[in-house]
């Protein structure tokens, strides 16, 4: 019974794949439009065996991690700063809110002019996109920290860094993690676009290249890889939440 219910979420995807395979074999689907699942797994295997897949995967992963680290790190730092220091909020927040309303992808022409088409341009796009969810949620988390708890801690003699470490930061953590989770989802979307600009490696490059040669199976391998990486990022974010918010019955 328990086993059946744990398999239940997979029933629909499996049924769809079976249907897809049948449709491709019977000839309802042309391989130009959608190759059969078997062809896709064959392409997966070939790319993996030649090592090509791992080169692209590694390049994309590295870009995602570096972009996330730069953008998310800056977002966290500035969010903590504007959330905690009124003067920093007055000076910075209006500007940041204006910049926030520019879609990161609208910057592409400018970014190409500034950085050319190499790695810096891609990292810049990723970092800008990831920055705002982390910044906004960190700011919000710090600001919405329970003032009753802060007052209590102050009356117990906590000041400065201990107050920050023991009360304000943990109070903001659920909100910060929401931002991190959102940013982890966003990083793949931005990566896909960034890698189609002009790249020599990466999953986006592999996919665009395959499109030129009408290799629909490889295109699908690329799409599936993005799905898997996105899922992986989500699992990581959930694990972080579960681990950092053990005290919260909503996450335990």
């Amino acid at each position, binding site marked *: 019974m328990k086993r059946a219910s744990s398999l239940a979420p997979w029933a629909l995807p499996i049924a769809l794949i079976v249907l897809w395979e049948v449709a491709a074999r019977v000839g309802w689907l042309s391989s130009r439009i959608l190759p059969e699942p078997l062809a896709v797994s064959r392409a997966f295997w070939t790319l993996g065996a030649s090592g090509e897949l791992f080169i692209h995967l590694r390049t994309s992963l590295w870009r995602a991690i570096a972009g996330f680290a730069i953008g998310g790190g800056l977002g966290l730092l500035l969010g903590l700063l504007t959330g905690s220091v009124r003067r920093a909020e007055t000076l910075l927040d209006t500007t940041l809110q204006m910049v926030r309303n520019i879609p990161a992808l609208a910057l592409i022409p400018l970014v190409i002019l500034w950085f050319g088409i190499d790695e810096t341009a891609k990292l810049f796009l990723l970092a800008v996109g990831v920055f705002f969810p982390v910044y906004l949620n960190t700011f919000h988390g710090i600001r919405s920290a329970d003032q*009753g*708890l802060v007052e*209590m801690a102050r009356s*117990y*003699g*906590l000041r400065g860094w201990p107050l920050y470490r023991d009360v304000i930061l*943990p109070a903001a953590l659920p909100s910060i993690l929401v931002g991190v989770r959102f940013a982890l989802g966003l990083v793949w979307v931005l990566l896909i676009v960034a890698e189609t600009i002009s790249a020599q490696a990466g999953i986006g490059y592999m996919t665009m290249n395959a499109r030129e040669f009408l290799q629909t199976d490889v295109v699908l391998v690329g799409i599936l890889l993005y799905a898997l990486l996105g899922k992986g990022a989500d699992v990581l974010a959930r694990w972080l939440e579960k681990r950092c918010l053990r*005290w*919260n019955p909503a996450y335990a």
Partner: protein
Amino acid sequence: MHNNVIEQRSLGVAVAAGQGAALTLSEVRKHYGARRVIENIDLALAPGEFVAIVGRSGCGKSTLLRAIAGLETLDGGAITGAGEVRMMFQEARLLPWKTVLDNVRLGLDGDPGQALEALRAVGLEDRAGDWPAALSGGQRQRVALARALVHQPPLLLLDEPLGALDALTRIEMQRLIESLWLACGFTAVLVTHDVQEALALADRVLVIEDGGIALDVAVDLPRPRARGAPFAALEQRLLDRLLQN
């Protein structure tokens, strides 16, 4: 029976008796804009005295307590002798991301022995490793009490800490507070809207009205207080005053 158990436990708290603070308020005033919340309050508390402040909602009793705690700035007058104050709030205000033991240790460094001792005094040492979310409302207030007492405060302020508890838990908590007060000898100020609670615990009950002390009644009844005729007479007197307007 239960009371005895707690009293025996409370002896475990390493607090020297008779170390209560002598608190003096002189012409204390607090305004919010044009509204005068506290108007020229003079008050002197003997070391180790237990004073209860009762009054209707919005009479300024909580503001007075917060002023003594140093959480409000005064618009006039002075408060002396408050020294190191610990306060219990209406909500327990435990940090949900710290275990029960670490909540009690807040602001202390080093050895958790004292904190465990304080938890034992409130009968919760077996919950030391739990998250506050796993405790009931009454247990959370007991942890908050342990957290306040572990600092061996000369003055303990209680801002309706039992207001949100059910009737039985309230009585249990009142007995616990009384026994710990007897054992530790701190000066205590309790703000409450419950006249019975004030009479069960305090040496002296103040009625606050329109920001001033309207009535100052000594409660000269043996402890633990039984709900007898003298108790009822005092209760009637206080209620009559409170219901006057």
